[in-house]
């Protein structure tokens, strides 16, 4: 299993928001929930491969900025048309004010 990768500072993401993180040719989205937990998913929407980092985070939901497809970013679950394929999620931990993602 691959190790933990440092993605960003905990303060780099606003509460109830998302930022982009790129690593070795792959792209991810890092979320901070309204209750101050951190999550990570693949960066690209499963509908048309648009990056989710411009999307709107509301509670547990990330809404794709392109056509408003919705995912639960904690579980990756697609919430219905136009998205039907789930998002891949990755384990996240916060240590010393930094956010780490476990990429497989």
């Amino acid at each position, binding site marked *: 299993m691959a190790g933990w990768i440092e993605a960003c500072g905990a303060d780099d993401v606003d509460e109830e928001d998302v930022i982009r993180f790129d690593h070795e040719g792959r792209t991810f989205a890092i979320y901070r929930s309204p209750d101050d937990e951190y999550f990570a998913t693949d960066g690209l929407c499963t509908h048309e491969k648009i990056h989710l980092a*411009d999307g*709107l985070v509301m509670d547990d939901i990330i809404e794709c900025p*392109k*056509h*408003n497809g919705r995912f639960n970013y904690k579980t990756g679950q697609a919430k219905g*048309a*136009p998205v039907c394929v789930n998002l891949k999620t990755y384990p996240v931990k916060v240590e010393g004010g930094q956010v780490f993602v476990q990429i497989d």
Partner: protein
Amino acid sequence: MASDKSASGPQGMVIVGAGECGIRAAMALREEGYGGPVTLIGAEPHLPYERPPLSKAVLLGDDAPSPKTIANEARLFEAAVLHLSSVTATGIDREAKSVSLSNGRGLHYSKLLLATGADPRPYALAEGLSHVFTLRTFDDALAIRSRLGPGCRLAIIGGGFIGLELAAAARTRRADVTVIEAAPRILGRAVPTEIAQVIHARHAREGVRILVGAAIADMKEQNGGILIKLQPALKDEAGPSAVQADLVVVGIGAQPNTALAEAAGLTVENGIAVDAHLRTSDPDIFAAGDCCSFPLAYQDGRRVRLEAWRNAQEQGTLAARNMLGGRQAHVAVPWFWSDQYDLGLQMAGLADRATQVVRRDLGSESFLLFHLDAEGRLVAASGIGPGTSIARDIRLAEMMIARGARPDPLKLANAESKLKALLAA
């Protein structure tokens, strides 16, 4: 009508039109737990597919494109949706509650949904000419695509969204593109002037020749293509007197497919007229998507018809629920997007009742416009910028519109003031 004699099978849900709206309705019937027969009748030979890529990705790329299907055979099978492709519904017998089909069969319905969409508005001067196309179906897009290439002279009649998206794609494929627009500016009343100007300037920079205020006098086949003769310009600016094209695409708008509804005696008013529950003048028949006109809840219920993808999805889903006895009203705020080059445009709400426009600058070629009515209520928001950069703010503005919010114009204008905070206020 013969339909009633030949109609067969148990009663169930019948949907006419297997486009964006029809397929979403079919799937929603199952998601809502309906266990009876669901039949989806589609005139096109394909599985239900998405239209927006037809003026975008389908025209680009090297690989032979395939339609972006919304539900493949396995999903239709799993959901037990019977999709009849290449079959047209030809008549409705409201007494017998049956639909007659082009294959000579008939179908009984307990509830019927008309999701027949819209077709390109025909252009009299182009009738019967070769080399002239419209762009609505996957087959249209393939036909245009196969003729596009470096140096191909493409003339687009009409500076609306579909024509302009096609222009952008054609430039990417290094075609020589002329857009002929009769009105004084592109994009008519669909978007605010400021946004139309940005798009116009961008097309000009990309090498598209846009002729506005240009009236076509005549079109004829000539030299293996089409010669478009223009009426002499009224003003002093000397526009060209003619445009020679290898390929002409007419994009002067669409008209709702209402013939079936009209023949059945349903009320038609700029589209098949439905109430807030998407019910037509016959309580067993619903209509949704591009083919219907409906009361716009957030603007005093005035009747509108939209040609927008998300609307087709939302209305399809809602119609399905109400076909099953639900009483949910359609309340969504209209929303659409358009992509041209790397520019993304989005708009929420309808701006024609706005009396004040507040602008928030975000960068070069990038800004938001907030459209407020006389009472200071936000009625629409539009924006343009690279990629999806304006998406989040348009989405937040849409929620403010839905709530009837009256945001402080000074805060709207200030890029430092977050819309999320304004929404919560």
